[in-house]
């Protein structure tokens, strides 16, 4: 076993300093050292997407990175998407509205992936959404509510940005 290595991150706006083993995954670091348990582990092989987080704004699989690789980075998880007053993000609210979840285990990863997807595809077609979210797996919903939620969120976000453009 090697000596622990210091790692500094900002997770959902909170700075964290910890010394972690070189082999500890980012997912385990977030769950155990930062107490961000919305990062869920469904496969630990990068296949299911349940552990998806934003690393400096980019969606990544937290199970495929080691904590020591992200020293100095900013991480956002599903716990960090709400407004400071606790108001759900547009994507989170849309998942609630559209029955985009059942057991909820894959949901934090989906919410993060959908958030990143809509950043890059503000006006997606139905097929864009179905393809764009195909890196995350859900076993409960048959994806019906998830796809509908992303459609709803896209519509709300584009209406909002449209009215901002006019101002």
């Amino acid at each position, binding site marked *: 076993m090697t000596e622990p290595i210091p790692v500094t991150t900002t997770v959902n706006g909170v700075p964290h300093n910890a010394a972690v*083993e070189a*082999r*500890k995954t980012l997912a385990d670091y977030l*769950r155990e050292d930062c107490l*961000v*348990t*919305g*990062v*869920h*582990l*469904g*496969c*630990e*092989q990068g*296949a*299911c997407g*349940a552990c998806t987080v934003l690393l400096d704004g980019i969606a990544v699989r937290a199970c495929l990175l080691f904590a020591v690789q992200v020293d100095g980075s900013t991480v956002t*998880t*599903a*716990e960090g*998407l*709400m407004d400071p007053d606790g108001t*759900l993000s547009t994507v*989170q*609210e849309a*998942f*609630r*509205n559209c*029955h*985009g*979840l*059942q*057991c*909820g*285990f*894959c*949901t*934090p990863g989906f*919410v993060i992936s959908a958030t990143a997807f809509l950043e890059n595809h503000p006006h997606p077609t139905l097929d864009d*959404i*179905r*393809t764009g*979210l*195909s*890196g*995350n*797996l*859900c*076993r*409960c*919903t*048959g*994806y*019906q*509510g*998830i*796809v509908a939620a992303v459609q709803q969120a896209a519509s709300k976000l584009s209406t909002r940005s449209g009215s901002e453009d006019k101002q």
Partner: protein
Amino acid sequence: MTTAETASAPPEAARFVGQSVRRVEDKRLVTGHGRYVDDVVLPGMFHVAFARSDFARARIVALDTTAAAALPGVHAVFTASELNHHVDSLRSSMVTAEQAIVPAHVLADGDVRFVGDPIALVVADNRYLAEDAIDLLDVEYEALLPVVDFEQAASDQNLVHPELGTNVAGVEHSTNAGVAPALANAAVVVTETFRQHRQRNMPMETRGLVVDWQPYAERVDIWASTQSPHELTLTAARVLNLGEHQVRVHMGDVGGAFGQKVFLGRDEIAVLLAARAVGRPLKWIEDRRENLIAANSARVDRTTVTMGLDDDARIVAAEIDQLNDSGAYPLGGVPANSNNLVSMFPGPYAIPLMSWSAGSVFTNTSGRGAYRGPWQMETVARELMIDTLARRIGMDPLELRRHNVIRQEDLPYTTATGNVYERISPAETLEQAVAMLDYDAFRVGQTEARLDGRYLGVGLSLFIEPTSKGAGALGNEGAVVRVELDGSVSVYMGTGSHGQGLETTIAQVVADELGIDMAVVAFHQGHGSPYGFGTGGSRSAVIAGGAARAAASGVRQQILHLAAHVLEAGPEDLRIELGVVSVAGTPTRSVSVAELARTAYTQPEALPPDTAPGLEHSARYQAPPVTFSNAAHVCTCEVDVNTGIVTLLRYLVSEDCGVMVNPMIVQGQIAGGVAQGIGGALFEHSPYDTDGNPLAATMLDYLIPTSAEIPIIEIGHIVTPSDSPGGHKGVGEGGAIGSPPCVVNAVNDALSPFGVAFTKQPITPNAVLRALDEVRTESAT
């Protein structure tokens, strides 16, 4: 959403029941604040990992734990000799009948019987160290020839469980003397064998538990990913030799199960035993590889059907011969699934005569267990046979179904297997589904497409779902409903909601019964709840809903009794709306439920004579023997004959689950089940090689569908209320029952110009290309 009613409207106008209210659970879940078992951290907690067999069948020549136990940070290594003597049976605790009796090997003892068989349990400071220790175990095996092919297992001289003297787990049959003459006189008789392959439940959250044995409190606290907190309580008490009062099961969020988390696996029992021996809290979280090789698997079936038609294309008789694979250590109720399979084979059709045989065998593979509609091979075999017959006689499969489907005027109808249907609507769902598609227009488009070299197909599938079984351990549920001093309401139930949203739907039911806002209802499961089977078997709307309604009704009577006293009115003149009791016609004479509750608990002198203090009622609901729901599935597909890829174009379901508590949740259940069935028909497969090695041990090998493969699922409803309180029927499993044969029938329809007809799944691109090659080769020779 299309809705039609076959009979009376829902019993009474309701405030919450029948509405697609947003789920109570979701705010915490969409923000990452659910609390699943792996989120539970206890002071001083150690972590568990299992060493598992790499051989399907082998003798353990030597197992040396010395080096593993000596690793710093490792606290214990357990093998069979330390744990197995505590347990005399692996039977489930709630369901005592109909068990496949397997040897009580908690850990492999002297030999291993499938790849993944647990041979040692390591306890360490963390999971990383526990897995390091497993690498240090020194195990020497003498490999033996395994029993892998379940179709050959019965005659194999090699035995999965030598103690049993046979590989046959069970066999039953019933011959109706009328079947043979009826088939002999039939205009057409077809015999075909259909097969289904090994599939996996694949909940996104694997199994897991945290066990905290406290010797000086003489109590064990358990957090688990479970569908059935009471099965866990009973089994923990049994294997730890405790009373049930010494076991406290805590039910948090559960990340799916689909049948996998009702009964305890051997590894879970081992963790219970190890926790007591170690004296510190233990956590075991199954990893995905373990889930894919060692957790129970499902669906390995072979069904041979002989069915005859008369000159009017009406079914005269059927004969079925069923065999399934129990694997090495099946979990709970495996023969019972064969009984369900036989019982439900007639399904939605008038099949006057039937003979059957059903058997199950042990193999050196992971054990069979429940998976969403565990008996659904009956629908697969029957619906594929209907299409086989239709092709044989040159009739459209829709017409053949119309000729044989049970209609309203046939009800009540008693099937050849003794089921009595009273409130079903198979003909109505069939017609609604084909109307939603515009079946005739599809046929026209299909013909045109073939001229362009495109192969489209349409598939149909009907079924009757036997929900809410009202017999034995599954037959009833209990509920305790209590109004707290501030007028809020606590509900305690023995269910194990794991995605079905019972926190929402039970609150809807209770709120309507009490006349309160559902926002003030809190739903509790686990420790402190009355016994119940849990959540599974498409039973919660009817049975849990019935119990919640009954308990809430008792509290309602208490509220009205007290309010009548306070308001000086007759209870029959009172109404309760949003937490306020008032006199009908005189709304100013009112008192809130909160005021009544405070009176009931803290002012016993103000209560009516002979009235006990408090507002609380406990009740159980015993369900009728079976509540049948029904559905029709229709889908269309295109098969690319150059690549073999099957693309689903449309998927439509017409479902009759009676009165819906929450239509949004019902549709979610249907869609989720359909997606699982599509996965099974086209992608998912957990094969073994001839040495018994599992070939799909990762999520990159076991392919569940993604959002790109599942089309929009269009859902229509026929509403035929059941006789149970509220008029509900179960719906949870149906989607996964109807969809596999629907997809296979669609592919077979698309490939009918080539004479290709699949009798087994999954229909992968390779399978399509191989089948096309075979027919081309045959026609060339």
